[in-house]
């Protein structure tokens, strides 16, 4: 009984929704703190910090584990959500001819599946725009820095993971990030993928000098991003507190504080996320 209860009962399905959902909330916080570096650090320093961060996020084994957990959570949250939605539809085969649900429940609470689906589409697009390009685009440029010589000519340098710079013309790139000395044919370091410039160019900054074409539709990207964050906000508005209710974490002494925290969280986090592309777009 209890074995099947954990796996298949209606309540257990909801726990998994809550647990994955709350984990994704944690992920959001982490993701947000990382992303905010893009607007809090400027210039070369900003680029370096962000790309180093991106490198760390893709290479640290613990983070890797967390990222797999995140992918799993997203998938599980989505699949479980779809199963629940279909079950719920089946629970009322004949609909009411006339219904006034707005009289008894908040709008976000009734549209979680739609909001969630929109977020899933956003995640797919978001990942193909950044994560996908970064991982799979053969031409993903590496972090470069323009060194201005005293004669005002430029020299393009690659930043390596051991903190040194290598002139571009001296190296060849192997396996996406390995910097190979052309003459010695020897690996002399590892470059950073330039996620920073990818992001900045995506939301409107011209980064042609870094190897990124200008994005004609940057305004659209910003609008869609902001819209998606609004959707996320609605999803969290109900989802955050709902998760605690489902896990049975409810106590009259703390409920109102928790509820307030949930509301603040659900507004603040998406708002902060949305501020990033807007800032990039505006500070051209």
């Amino acid at each position: 009984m209890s074995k099947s209860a954990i796996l298949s009962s209606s309540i257990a399905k909801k726990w998994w929704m809550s647990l994955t959902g709350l984990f994704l909330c944690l992920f959001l916080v982490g993701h947000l703190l990382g992303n905010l570096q893009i607007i809090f650090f400027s210039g070369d320093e900003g680029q370096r910090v962000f790309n180093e961060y991106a490198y760390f996020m893709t290479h640290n084994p613990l983070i890797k584990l967390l990222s797999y957990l995140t992918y799993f959570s997203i998938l599980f949250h989505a699949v479980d959500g779809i199963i629940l939605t279909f079950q719920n539809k089946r629970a009322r085969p004949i609909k009411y001819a006339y219904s006034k649900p707005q009289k008894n429940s908040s709008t976000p609470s009734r549209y979680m599946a739609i909001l969630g689906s929109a977020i899933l589409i956003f995640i797919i697009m978001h990942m193909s725009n950044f994560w996908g390009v970064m991982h799979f685009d053969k031409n993903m440029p590496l972090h470069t820095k323009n060194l201005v010589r005293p004669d005002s000519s430029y020299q393009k340098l690659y930043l390596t993971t051991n903190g040194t710079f290598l002139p571009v013309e001296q190296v060849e790139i192997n396996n996406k990030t390995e910097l190979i000395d052309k003459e010695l044919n020897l690996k002399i370091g590892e470059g950073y993928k330039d996620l920073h410039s990818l992001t900045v160019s995506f939301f409107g900054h011209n980064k042609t000098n870094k190897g990124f074409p200008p994005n004609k539709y940057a305004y659209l990207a910003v609008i869609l991003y902001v819209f998606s964050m609004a959707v996320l906000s609605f999803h969290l508005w109900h989802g955050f507190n709902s998760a605690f209710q489902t896990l049975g974490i409810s106590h009259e002494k703390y409920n109102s504080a928790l509820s307030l925290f949930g509301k603040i969280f659900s507004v603040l986090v998406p708002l902060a996320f949305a501020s990033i592309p807007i800032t990039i777009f505006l500070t051209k």
Partner: protein
Amino acid sequence: MKLKLKVWRQKNRKEKGKLETYSLDNVSEHMSFLEMMDVLNEQLINDGVEPVAFDHDCREGICGMCSMYINGQPHGPDRGVTTCQLHMRKFNDGDTIYIEPFRAKGFPIVKDLVVDRGAFDRIQRAGGFISVNTSGNTQDANLTPVPKKDADKAFDAATCIGCGACVASCKNASAMLFVSAKVSQYSLLPQGKVEAKRRVLNMVEQMDKEGFGNCTNTGACHVECPKEISLENIARMNREFLKASITSEK
């Protein structure tokens, strides 16, 4: 007042139903909704039309038998009342009123507005009790003190009348509020703690079997509940279920 009624008519479980329109004059605002239905039926009988079948019994809001979905809400627009306590003063002259049965897979239609809520009984049978036989030698009632707060909360949960408005109002037709009210009542009282694990596991299992939807915490059930049963009960049941399913031997 004059009213236009759109009433769901369905001969029996198998046949298809549809909304029929009736008009009714001379409705007093002091009538209860069911008295208005009585007037409609009296009129239909006189016109040679079969009267509308609807469930009702005590007509004072406690038996839980009346069960209409009125203008998009179970038990109609008023709060904290059953259909029998809903009065026509909540409506205006010339209104069109939609009257439908409670709809859920777990509540098949019997006829017109009458539904079969036997699923609730079956859930209760699965564990909604304390296993104590009738005995002239039960321990004295005051031997085990119960904190007033717990007793009051148990009572609040126990005021559920089993009408099914929670299921009817829920967009998922979930029965969680009903089931959690019973689970809560017993889990709050020392007498009920002995069987707490078995009870919550069995009742939830039966609830799932009956084809009710899942709780997505919209809170509609609590708002529409004529006894205003608290959502805290659902949280408590979730907690009890978690505890039980992890630690139960079975």
